[in-house]
């Protein structure tokens, strides 16, 4: 019960920190403009080369992947940034740390609001894609159970990975941002976010196949637009995604396994970093970064 209250209050705090710097209208504009502009970069790249043809399976593949990647980037960054932001910027980490609360509940509460805000951006981007650009999502044809389960597993996977990075943030002053962006960048380039992994050289495809986000992207796409994903391979005449032979259950199994492995690994990393940070007096350490 106490943990739930901590979670709720951390989420509320996170919301205030994210949103109360401006009025609600401007904040909504901010939430919409950034993701739409990021998506338009890819849309224009595609339109320029194809001469305006958005009625293709690959366009939908690319658009949906880019929209869903917002979760990977924002949530990963959001979870791990809690440590850095509270310690270096607001200088409140020491108070939160010594408070009689579950620290994990606090961190995940802050992450939950990040997921909620990112969801607004993702939904608006997808609606824009469907209504304006004809992205191949048919609400009636969606595989809702697959979508919901893969989203839950994906959020869990990204959040626990963020926790490990948060642990590392305990021990570093200047590397938190670079490490976060580096991990998110690896996902963007190697997880089949905006192009199929079969386009990569074979050595790079090996990297793709060990990244959980690769499986998450495939599962989410199948959940959101099963018919488009089926016809992507049929139209191309080969297994474009390189994952056509994997069943939905297999994808979810890999994701569930990833969550378990990352959970154990992240808790271990976080605890180890916590012990070292206490010993070296880094909990209330500020370095002006």
């Amino acid at each position, binding site marked *: 019960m106490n943990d739930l209250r901590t979670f709720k209050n951390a989420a509320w705090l996170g919301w205030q920190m994210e949103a109360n710097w401006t009025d609600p209208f401007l904040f909504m504009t901010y939430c919409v403009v950034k993701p739409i*502009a990021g998506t338009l*970069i890819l849309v*224009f*790249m595609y339109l320029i*080369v194809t001469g305006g043809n958005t009625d293709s399976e690959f366009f939908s593949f690319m658009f949906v992947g880019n929209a869903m990647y917002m979760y990977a980037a924002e949530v990963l960054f959001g979870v791990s940034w809690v440590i850095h932001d509270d310690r270096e*910027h607001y200088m409140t980490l020491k108070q939160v740390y010594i408070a009689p609360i579950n620290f994990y509940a606090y961190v995940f509460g802050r992450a939950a609001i990040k997921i909620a805000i990112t969801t607004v951006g993702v939904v608006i981007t997808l609606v824009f894609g469907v209504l304006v650009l004809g992205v191949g999502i048919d609400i009636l044809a969606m595989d809702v159970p697959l979508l919901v389960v893969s989203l839950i597993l994906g959020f869990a996977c990204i959040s626990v990975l963020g926790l490990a990075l948060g642990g590392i943030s305990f021990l570093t002053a200047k590397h938190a941002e670079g490490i976060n962006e580096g991990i998110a960048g690896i996902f963007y*380039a190697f997880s089949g976010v905006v192009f199929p992994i079969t386009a990569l050289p074979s050595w790079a495809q090996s990297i793709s196949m060990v990244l959980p986000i690769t499986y998450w992207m495939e599962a989410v796409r199948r959940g959101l637009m099963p018919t488009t994903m089926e016809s992507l391979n049929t139209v191309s005449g080969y297994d474009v995604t390189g994952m056509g032979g994997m069943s939905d259950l297999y994808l979810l199994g890999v994701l569930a396994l990833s969550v378990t492995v990352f959970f154990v690994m992240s808790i271990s990393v976080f605890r180890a970093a916590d012990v070292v940070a206490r010993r070296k007096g880094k909990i209330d350490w500020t370095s002006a970064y």
Partner: protein
Amino acid sequence: MTDTWMVRNLRAVRGRAYPRVIGLMREPSWMIYGTVLPLFSITAYVYVYKFIGAKPEFVGYVVLGGAMTAFWLNVLWSMAAQLYWEKETGNLQLYMIAPISRMSLLAGMAVGGLFETTTRAASTLALGVFAFGIVLTLTDPLMLVLVFLATMVALYGMGMMFASLYLLFGREAYHMSNLLMEPVYFASGFYFPVRYLGFWTALGASIIPITLGLDAMRQLFFEGAPGDAFLPVQTELAVLATLSVVFIVLAKFSLDYMEKLGKSTGRLTLRWQ
């Protein structure tokens, strides 16, 4: 011996540039982050172009644009938002009472930032050219140098102007810089020729100096680029030179105004807003 006003301000420029230049040596990991991180998005965009069968120049456009993002990020986070960070860390009040022009401080930040960022962007460009086998055909190196210099003076002049505007921001500074990333990458054509946005949109985006600078550099670096160009290189150079003067003058006026406003409202040293 009493220093002249000029000597004092030149020292201020050198003093403020120093930590940015020496920072490259003190924290080499940042050099790695600054060089390698842009390569991830560059790689993704390169493979998108390759997958949809774009002509080879587009791969070069992405690599050059991706390398140039370093300058825009530096202007946003290390110029525009810098006085806000200085306020947060308590340095701003020291700058304000120092017997120097605040423009010298901003110029020092610009010089140091330019050095630091050019090193990173050149490394990213070199790695991108090597990794993706891009052919650069540089026919007019002098023009390239002129375009690059004009772009940087105008861009960092814009950063100096933003720095004073940001002075009155609290947490808005962070969000403002965050907001000006992807929309500017899009409007300025970092990953595709800006011409394809249409004449009026491209014209509007030209207020951001890197739009025309990037367009001109692409024309000078890639053989097929003039077909994708927005304006001729000479015209773009002339506009950039004009923007350089305009932004530096505006930076001076806005800095004076904001400093006066900040002092009268007592917000110059107010932290954690």
